[in-house]
């Protein structure tokens, strides 16, 4: 059996994941035993304020979401580089700090560009 610190630290996560999934499955099953089930055609229609549903939901969607996701992706990857830097900053000293100042400057320039191009506006 493996018995190192890494395995010990992540063992509870594995157990809790299993318990969580089992809990949801058991409670759904419990309700399946107890609940009534009397489906009618009207009950199974999609809710649309009591009207008959019009058209399909899966249509082409607003491009603005795409722009925001792209900007998010840039920042999220940038932030990944900031974690190890933040942990080690006290050891890196002034050179490490100024290198990251340049990195953050580039992120800020990117944000300003996206702002200027109106990628952050919800309505156009």
């Amino acid at each position, binding site marked *: 059996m493996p018995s190192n610190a890494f395995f010990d630290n992540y063992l509870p996560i594995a157990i809790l994941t299993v318990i969580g999934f089992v809990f949801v499955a058991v409670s759904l099953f419990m309700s399946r035993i107890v609940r009534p089930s009397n489906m009618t055609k009207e009950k199974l229609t999609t809710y649309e304020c009591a009207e008959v549903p019009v058209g399909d*939901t899966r249509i082409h969607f607003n491009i603005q979401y795409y722009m925001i996701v792209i900007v998010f992706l840039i920042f999220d990857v940038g932030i990944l580089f900031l974690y190890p830097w*933040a942990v080690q900053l006290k050891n890196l000293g002034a050179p490490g700090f100024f290198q990251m100042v340049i990195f953050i400057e580039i992120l800020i320039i990117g944000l300003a560009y996206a702002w200027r191009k109106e990628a952050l506006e919800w309505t156009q």
Partner: protein
Amino acid sequence: MWTGDTMTNAYELIVNILTAIGVYDQIYNLFEIFGMAYVLKILIVSVLIAVLFAFVLVTVMFLTWMERKVVALVQVRYGPMVTGPRGLLQPVMDGIKLIGKEDIIPAKADRWIFTLAPFIVFVPALLIFIPIPFGNSLIISDLRVGLLYIIAISAVSPIAVLLAGWASNNKYSLLGAMRAVAQDISYTIPLALAAIAVVIFTGSLSTVDIVNAQGDYWFGIIPKWFIFLQPIGFVLFLIASIAELGRIPFDFQESESELVAGFFTEYSGMKFAMFFLAEYAHLFAVSGIVVTLFLGGWNGPVIPFIPVQITSLVYFLIKTYAVIFFTMWLRDTVPRMRIDQLLNIGWKIMVPLALLNLLVAGFLVTAGVI
């Protein structure tokens, strides 16, 4: 076997208590005979996980009651009063009611994804609790990347929201899910940046190290909580986490007056209950993280003759409930914003402010001021 003086997590605490009573060695030897010493460890960890799970569920039930009571308090009503003393058993009755409810899957919905979404929303809401220190050595697992783990796990919930909204095949659900995802990813950036500013001061991502770094006092009176070092970071983190939770004033994913119930419009019965439980588990977890990062975690005045594990748990819960009460109070007094205002505040005010805050924090640490 565990040896040493410091206890870092609840497993070692249990082993320590069992050793003090004098039964651990016997149990250990019993398992050793069958060559299954590791099974004992898995057993103890499973019991701890079960305790955590029960604790979280009870807390969640209490929070649903508390939410109604706080709303009632603000609106000068009584709130639930009938079931149990002061209506305390109301969440139990809700659970019984929801178990007996019909589980409707709309004919046009994607059946598998529709059923999968409650699992994916509920399990990560539990997993966040693993590295949260509830008290001195009352932590399930002190991960070395604890803070990164918390932010990574909480980024799973937008996926579940998107699955739920897409699978329902309902226009309100889809709009609610899209808004929720746009909002979640917009506010993850200032959230993570504010957390990184704290990491600069501690030099560690472990939640236990972050709490220990806040244990001292300035001039013997003012506690060294990061809220005093990082006031801007605290405000940014609090606003961003309320937005991540999707609570008023940021509740676009389920704004009742526009989108019926947002991404879980089509859910009923126990599947709806899972979304409901996950929402309140998230609220508890996020308040715990705010306390851990900025309000000194379980630190507080030491009281003689009472074990530090108990006093620290009490301090942690008091602070956490204070944060939870604040968010509920905010819900009752602030109107909802518009979606474009929300994204403007997120990207044009909070992200630049968080970057600036990070640079200032980095400068202070590098210059050796703090």
